[in-house]
């Protein structure tokens, strides 16, 4: 219409609300025979937040074989700040070394009945503190 201007109203986009998130690191050894999966899950728990670690160890004899799952652990950790830090900032060399080394080693030993399960859980959880 003459004398008028079309005005387009821009509707601002809304920021969506994050409910929960999960981060999964799969670390493979150079020789391809060992795989460690380290997952961090953040979920709301009432007014608070719960962090869960899921730790899995896979091994195989030869590269051409399929991986066999040797261990699967789930640990609710109290180390919420450290878990949040690892989820957002990744693993340090010490944490990565601990996850694929002693944590995997103890998880395997617990599965074989060589050490108590609580010891293995403690070693896995200690990854956050390394």
């Amino acid at each position, binding site marked *: 219409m003459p004398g008028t201007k079309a005005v387009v109203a821009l509707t601002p986009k809304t920021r*969506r609300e994050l409910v929960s998130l*999960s981060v999964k*690191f*799969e*670390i493979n050894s150079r020789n391809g025979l060992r795989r460690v999966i380290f997952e961090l899950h953040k979920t709301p728990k009432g007014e608070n937040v719960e962090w869960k670690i899921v730790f899995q160890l896979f091994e195989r004899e030869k590269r051409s074989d399929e991986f066999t799952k040797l261990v699967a652990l789930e640990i609710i950790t109290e180390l919420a700040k450290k878990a949040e830090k690892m989820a957002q900032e*990744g693993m340090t060399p010490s944490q990565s070394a*601990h996850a694929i*080394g002693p944590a995997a080693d103890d998880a395997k030993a617990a599965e074989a009945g060589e050490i108590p399960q609580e010891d293995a859980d403690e070693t896995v959880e200690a990854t956050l503190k390394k």
Partner: protein
Amino acid sequence: MRCIAQILLLVWVILTKAVAQQEEPIAGSSCQGANLEQFQVRDVRIEHPFRFVGSVLNRLSVAQSAVASLKGKQYSLKEAEAAKSQLLNEPFLSEAGSSLVRFSYAAVFVDQCKDGGLDLIFQVFSSQVSPSFGGLFESLIAERTRPQEVAGVTDPKEPLRFSPQFRYDRSERFAAGGRMELAPSALHLPIDHMVVEGRQSNNSQHLSASLSGVTIQERIGLGRLEWQLNYLHSVAATDRDPLRQNRLLGQIWAATKPLGGPGVVLRFGVSAEGGNQHSDFATAELSANTVARAGYGSLKFFGGQTFRTRRHSVAASYGVELGATESGPTMDYAKHVGDVAYSLWIPVADHRQVELESRFSAGGIGGSGSIPAPKRFFGGNTEQNFLASNVWMIRANPVLRSFPSNRFYHTADGVGGDRFFSYNLTAAFPGPRNWHRPLVPVELTKDGQFPKILNGALITTTSTLSLDYAVRDPAFQKATAQFSELGDSLKQLETKVKDAQAGAGGMLEAEFRNCLRRTSTAQRRLRSAIEAKSGDLFGFVKDLLDPAEGIALALKACATDLNSQLQNGIIEAETKKLETIRSSMAKAFEGVNMMLAVKKAEIEMGVVKRTLNTIFEDINLFSVSPLFTFDVGRLGRESTDGRGGVRYGLGGGVRFTLVSHVVFDAGYAWNVRRRMMSEPKGAFFFAMTFRDLFE
């Protein structure tokens, strides 16, 4: 010239408009603080940056139907969590390859909490970028056209790929063809790719078939070692008789891993080829030492360097060909080519950049024997590669987009230049806002969590990689050289403690048990360390030597807690011996230069980081960009009648990219310095390549 000015003006207007446009503001969340369980799920969707890839889309379709059951139901955190866990474990990544670290991320979002309903959104992303990927100048093309491969979503060794190709050029006319690639990994042959590529028009043919293999030789510092056996038959059109070639080639080349701070990659190689080169030019048209047709054999040596930063990329290469024709086994000719390419991206707005690509090439051919005419330099709007490679380009002819292919070849000395140089500049400007769409949704890249988490994944990969460098440190090897001594000492201590326990009559039972448990743990760690090969070895040794773990715990349990009460001289001697070994190993371990190991890993991962940044911040799913081109080239000696010498070309066009599907550049370049009546006034350039149809 008026047309060129109009194009430049148009480009400027578009650019200015693009810069002026801003993103819409983002307001606060409508779901913040809401009791979500009271809302009904209005809509459910899954966001994945690589949903345009066939394999991902198939997975997403399955996953979408699984989460669709949540739609219309009351929101439940438990059900949303279960769906998220399922998505986290979906195999979106290619299973091939041997990435050190694979990373997956899944998140649940809610949005539009109003009228009793909410939108439930799942975000998923996975990546497994190989540290050895992407250091090359040419990898830029891969990033922009095949980001899904760079991010490890698809396998570079897909069993079958087929890409149709279409091009138009006034010499060649309309040509159609395709490229078929087989990865015969199932045959357990040392062959990674079998490629057949063909293109045909009324007056040109191109058929090549190759077998090739690629490997990484980290021990000798090579990020890529590639061999190829290649057969080529080509009939290249000119404005007169075509240039014909049949040849068989064997080639091997290698590239180092990124070196030093900027991550310079050095590359070098050699090839041997033989065959025949034919043309129908009359002898009178050729220079004295040139023959119209000949069989030939030649050796090529080539080398160069390339490096790239986030916004700059440089490659410089040199190659020499030493050839002999049928006249005898002596060297008849030598051909030299040098090629320098530089690309720069200037961001002007979100996902919009000015892309500047420039290339300078030069070459010469000479010798005491016969030179087949097609071996001389023929210029035009088609580039020729000195190598048989899609990964490394050393341009071997003058490229002038204002000439149809192989139409720039007349010189004062006859047909085909004996030397040349050419410089080409291409500037691609971003189109207006609705002429592009970011590859990765803005919701993902602008979200507060995701960029941090992605960066964290890169840090994890760098950390894991640094362990491999740390175990190669001489100080670390000095520490592990004492494994045997340590094993003997731990075994001795365990034996002596057991002997003492047997004679203790039940005394200090808890102390004995704890000492044996700690000794046993240390022995288990040592056994694992002996079996370990790389990064995990570092973890075991660190744990063994940690003042609060491993051997130190065993010593505390046996020497301090047990033997301070037991006062057993044999155990005391064994614990002292163990402490001496531990101290010696720990001293060596302290000498490990962890900072250097991390630095080396960072250099290696720098390429990956830049690549991922490019994928997330620069690459568009589709984009339309106006092009401006400028060329200058010189071919051979210039005659008074205008043969040879310098030519200029100015042009404009458009670049259209639809990631994973099609890329084309099209335009027209004017021959600004036209010296001969037979020369074209200019030329259209058009090339369209479809991406893999089977992906």
